[in-house]
């Protein structure tokens, strides 16, 4: 339904009086690509602009983590037991030396937040892209071939959807030992199913359309039809779903790390930082240990969610008017 192929702009019904005016009007009616239209619509949405700004800011913060460390003079795992902790091991709050306070081992929360952002973004983006690739392939194949292929792939999708995420993650980590690649693998494994279902439905609707028949009658191979004719029509749901998958992947990672099943300490991750605050009820006296990583997590996931929403509206304005589309 959601075609993103070029739509001609509304023709201007001006009657050219002179050659000059005709020329000017001709310039006005120049064909604008769908991408430029999308960006134009996106620009008009303040929430999307704000989200993009927040995301870019956090990306810059993550990339600049070594700079933050150099500027503060605090390494991400360096413990400042004299300046960052009281003699009884209670972290100091935000101050000139520790701008966002110290954690329970006297480490700089600001520096750890920056390095933690690397982990969150890496996991979020890599896992979402990998998951959406799997989702697209499974969805397109299932929808295009139908029959037994569809049955098998759809039941596999159902199966994965019915596996309890945390239980499975705990079991896997207990056997294999926690690590970054394992976290990503677990998140990918549990994330591709939603997109696969959506894509399958879309492909089923598309595969009997005239342009597919035309391609087939011209002798195009199945692979060619799937990827050259059908796939471009699925760009909108893929982009929107992948964008919306990023925040849930980031939260998945934080959940795993919070439970001690994700990133192994002392490597910082936002989930680890939140777990540190929960241990020994430190949150009671060290609010910055909750507010800082929690706020960052909230900002980043909210930004990706709003951007995903904005992208959907911008890419498919028709759907946004009639309620939820794509």
């Amino acid at each position, binding site marked *: 339904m959601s075609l993103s192929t070029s739509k001609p702009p509304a023709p201007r019904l001006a009657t050219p009086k002179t050659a000059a005016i005709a020329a000017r009007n001709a310039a006005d009616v120049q064909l604008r690509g769908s991408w430029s239209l999308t960006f134009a619509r996106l620009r008009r949405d303040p929430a999307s602009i704000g989200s993009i700004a927040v995301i870019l800011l956090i990306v810059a913060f993550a990339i600049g983590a070594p700079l933050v460390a150099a500027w503060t003079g605090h390494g991400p*795992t360096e*413990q400042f*037991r004299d300046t960052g*902790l*009281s*003699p*009884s*091991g*209670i972290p100091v709050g935000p101050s000139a030396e520790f701008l966002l306070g110290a954690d*329970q*081992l006297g480490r700089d929360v600001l520096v750890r937040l920056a390095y933690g952002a690397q982990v969150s973004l890496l996991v979020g983006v890599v896992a979402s892209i990998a998951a959406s690739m799997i989702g697209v392939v499974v969805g397109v194949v299932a929808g295009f071939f139908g029959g037994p292929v569809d049955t098998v792939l759809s039941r596999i999708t159902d199966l994965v959807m019915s596996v309890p995420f945390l239980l499975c993650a705990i079991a896997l980590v*207990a056997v294999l*030992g*926690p690590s970054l690649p394992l976290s990503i693998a677990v998140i990918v494994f549990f994330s591709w199913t939603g997109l696969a279902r959506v894509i399958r439905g879309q492909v089923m609707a598309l595969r009997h359309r005239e342009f597919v028949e035309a391609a087939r009658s011209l002798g195009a191979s199945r692979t060619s039809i799937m990827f050259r004719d059908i796939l471009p029509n699925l760009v909108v749901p893929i982009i929107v779903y992948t964008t919306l998958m990023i925040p849930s992947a980031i939260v998945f990672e934080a959940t795993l790390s919070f*439970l*001690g099943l994700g990133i*192994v*300490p*002392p490597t910082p991750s936002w989930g680890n930082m939140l777990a*540190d605050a929960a*241990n*020994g*009820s*430190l*949150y*009671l*006296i*060290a*609010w910055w240990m*909750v507010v800082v990583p929690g706020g960052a997590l909230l900002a980043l996931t909210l930004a990706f969610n709003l951007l995903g929403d904005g992208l959907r509206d911008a890419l498919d304005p028709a759907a946004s008017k009639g309620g939820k589309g794509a």
Partner: protein
Amino acid sequence: MSRKLLVPATALTVATVFALAACAPSSDDAAGGGEPKAGGTLKVLANGDVDHLDPQLVAYVPTYNVMRSISRSLLSYSASNDAAERIVLQPDLAEAVPEPSADGLSYTITLRDGITWGAPDGERAIVASDVERGIKRLCNPLISGALAGYFTGLIEGMAEFCTGFAAVAPEVDPMREYLENTDISGIETPDDTTVVFTLTKPASDFPFMLSLDAADPAPIEALDELPDSPEYRRSFVSSGPYKVADYTPDAKLVLERNEAWNPDSDPLRKAYVDSIEMTMGVEGDAAMQQLQAGSADLLFDLSPSPANIQQLKAQNDDKLSTMENGGVDQFMWINTKSPNNGGALADLKLRQALQYAVDKTAVVQTMGGEELAGVTNGIFGPGILGYEEYDPYPANDGKGDPEKAKQLLAEAGFPDGITLKLPYRNVGTQPDIAQTVQASLERAGITVELTPVPPTDYYANFMTNPENATTGAWDIALVGWSPDWQGGAARSVFQPQFVFDGTHQSYNYVDYNSDAANALAEQALAATTPEEAGDLWHQVDEAVMADSPMVSIAYRLKPNYHSERVGGFVEYAQSQNGDWTNVWLNG
């Protein structure tokens, strides 16, 4: 969120301070809380349940408070806020603390007058045969007591008795049949009030072992049910000031007065409160809030968290107290069997390098500072006979000496450092302690790889699996150990962990053994005076540490808290908490 919590807490403190200033504590009794008065329901909050409600099986420290209330032991301790006083052995059911015979092999216990069972058919005197029955129940074939091992080899004829018992079907009738008709040669009961124990070898700490509830007498009714079965728990026959009125596992335990208990026969328990109600399933922070609000009084298996303690100290709350328990928690086992790094940890020099590398003061700071923990250097912790402050590997007052460690590392053939595997439990401050140790070893060029292990698996499946030691799943590991009883308890630290006689012991992870230490321990057990025993146990400590099988890091103090209305909060050493049978309730 934290602010919202802080405001009422601060208001409460201000009120407390004014209230205290106005009343001015009537006596110099640190426990405070006005004059003793009887009555009321003591409300206790717990996270989990008791481990067992069967004296012979109990081995969980918090449960000793339940046992203190419902099951009297032969010997026990006075509840006291004085660390030295509360580990002095006192007679409970016995008339006096027994002295060994001249050869050190025999102890005679005389039971007091007026001690009774609150049996279903009316009160009945506790007699010598009940004592014998209790000891016999230790090795019943259904569930043997966790502490049975200390008695089995020590009391003459008990090993044979237990071997025979193991062959009996674990059902009520066959067990009663065997238990009542088979004797342990080392326990004689010449009359109803006299029990004579004969030991296989001298054991100066035997009277201390009799303070364990494992050695409590058992009434004849105890044989009518399977040990610690739901039926047994329901029909528990009490010898203490309270009895079980209601019990729902993992939810609620209610104790009420045992009318059969005779206060004149009990010098250790005042039993002020009328009933004790323990509610389970409460989380730490919620429990602390209830105590501060006054809707509950004491904690069972919960303790104030470091953050709670920080808040309470900031408010100068005198209801917070700490006590030592004789344990060393944490210390770091070194896996001499690890094949990693070409079996390098078998080299004494490398193990000594670790002794110098660890920053013990940093670990103490992570545990909450000097008010909650302290540095240890040997196998025994403070509060145990044999503990002496000494430092076989002095390193800047516990801060560590990275240079010396590097030098030893180089001498051991690792001038460029070494990589070691450290498993850690993902619970509480354990990840923090592991990261603290990691950072301190890093200074000496030792890279530590942290591997998380699920907390429930750590001891049960990971550390106690000898294969993990021999395959190098760990090189160094942080563990804790508390003695099984108080005072003369060095044996319960040394024997399970540092003795290998050919059979693997669960907690001697790498089959460590030292003939020199074993010989000294033998002498210490045969010592006639506590001073002599203490001195010899210290030599055992030195002999073990010379081999550097582990790095002793810190001892922990147990923090305790109680509500405003609790009076006479005195600590009972066995339960590491306030004594339920000696507190009263104001207001």
